[in-house]
């Protein structure tokens, strides 16, 4: 289990992972009120990245990530997430995967 220290790193890696394996990737959140801990996990069953925190500020960042994933997963991996406030560098990588599904 790979814990990523930086939020931005985690964000970027999880989006890359999802875009490369949209059918296998899942995003998991575990919250323990009694411990005040939050753990996020993104995996495609081959690679796995995690982020853990006990900070309230990270909960706000997680909300953004939730929105991003909801948008991507409900609309498809090619969905435009710019309105969710994602960094430009991620947008600059258009999904090159074949669009076999949509044909």
């Amino acid at each position, binding site marked *: 289990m790979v814990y990523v220290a930086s939020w931005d790193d985690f964000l970027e890696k999880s989006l890359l992972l*999802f875009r490369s394996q*949209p*059918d296998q*990737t*899942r*995003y*998991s*959140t*575990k*919250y*323990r*009120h*009694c*411990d*005040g*801990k*939050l753990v996020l996990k993104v995996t495609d*069953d081959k690679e796995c990245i995690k982020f853990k*925190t*006990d*900070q*309230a*500020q*990270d*909960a*706000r960042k*997680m*909300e953004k990530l*939730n*929105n991003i*994933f*909801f*948008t*991507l*997963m*409900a*609309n*498809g*991996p090619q969905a435009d997430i710019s309105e969710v406030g994602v960094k430009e560098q991620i947008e600059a990588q258009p999904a090159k995967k074949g669009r*076999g*599904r*949509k*044909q």
Partner: protein
Amino acid sequence: MEGFGNSALFFHKQSALLNSHTQYTEMVRLQPDPFLNELTNMFERTTEKGSVWVTLKHSSDKSKVKINKMKTAGEKIEYKCLVRATDGKKTISTMVGQKDHSRFQSSYATILKTRMTALKKRERKDRRKTADSDKKQEPKKPSSAAKPSN
């Protein structure tokens, strides 16, 4: 202990391992609104102990066989966002489509904001990058490495 969600991604019934005994909890598929209600209850039940897991996955809710058939027939496969939640004992799930995803995502965010209150507010300035406009420094607490606010 098998991690939650590792197995049976494409099946509707999931086993939830409790202690060392295998107990099978049926996955309950709900509509988005009842799901949100039940999720709120889960958070309420786990304030003293326990965890709430929520998992999001891009899914079409169809078996691989059906997907392949649809692909060869040239049919468009409709994808939705599968959301699952469990407290280790009970598991619920729902499918959120394109139309209701905005509404669902804001209701979901509200639930989290209301419920995830045990996380620590920022006391130490070890994250200089985050310049949230609503940062609240509590000066009454003499933190160990407290830098003066900028």
